[in-house]
């Protein structure tokens, strides 16, 4: 019962770990650059999920906007992780934008987005 409680009590965390691992794997192991970026997105979103999970409070806490009549701290969700994650999302999309820009540069230059094919092209050019 204890373990069950333990697993259920933290199911959000388990899911974020799974997502993070999926993203991490895609980032390292995938051959296609676009896939790597997809992995990167998943990876970062997983971290955001983790932070949002920190913020939540059980027992009727409401969204972090002041309502009339509610003035106790435990009645609201923790706003700080939300703020941090707003920033993180923005950072994420910026990184993503830059990465996509570089993808396009790569495609312009090599005509492909597969890592091994680009490596082969570079090797061929070196031999010339």
């Amino acid at each position: 019962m204890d373990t069950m409680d333990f697993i259920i009590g933290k199911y959000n965390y388990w899911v974020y770990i799974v997502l993070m691992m999926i993203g991490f794997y895609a980032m390292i192991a995938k051959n296609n650059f676009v896939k790597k970026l997809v992995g990167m997105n998943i990876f970062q979103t997983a971290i955001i999920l983790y932070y949002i999970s920190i913020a939540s409070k059980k027992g009727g806490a409401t969204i972090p906007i002041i309502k009339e009549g509610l003035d106790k701290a435990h009645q609201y969700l923790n706003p700080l992780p939300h703020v941090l994650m707003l920033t993180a999302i923005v950072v994420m999309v910026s990184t993503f934008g830059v990465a996509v820009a570089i993808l396009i540069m790569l495609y312009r230059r090599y005509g492909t987005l597969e890592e091994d094919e680009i490596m082969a092209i570079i090797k061929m050019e070196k031999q010339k």
Partner: protein
Amino acid sequence: MRIIAIFAVVITGFLLIYATLDMPNWGDPNSPASRHVSPRYIEGTMPETATPNMVTSVLADYRGYDTLGETTVIFTAGIVCLMLLRRVTNGQ
């Protein structure tokens, strides 16, 4: 490559799970995260900044400097894309 990747992923995953064992349960209102700094934001947002949305007040005031950084990140990304991709064709 794939084997290294799986290895790295498994190790990271193991670390994460290991850490989760000691974490406060999900949604625990008494976790340190909810008790140490954040109550001030919740209680202070109206009297100190007159803003009901505490996310906005934290974002733009209490931790406004982070947001300046964030906006700068966006700006950087924009200029970067402009610099890397923009090609002025002969017409322009």
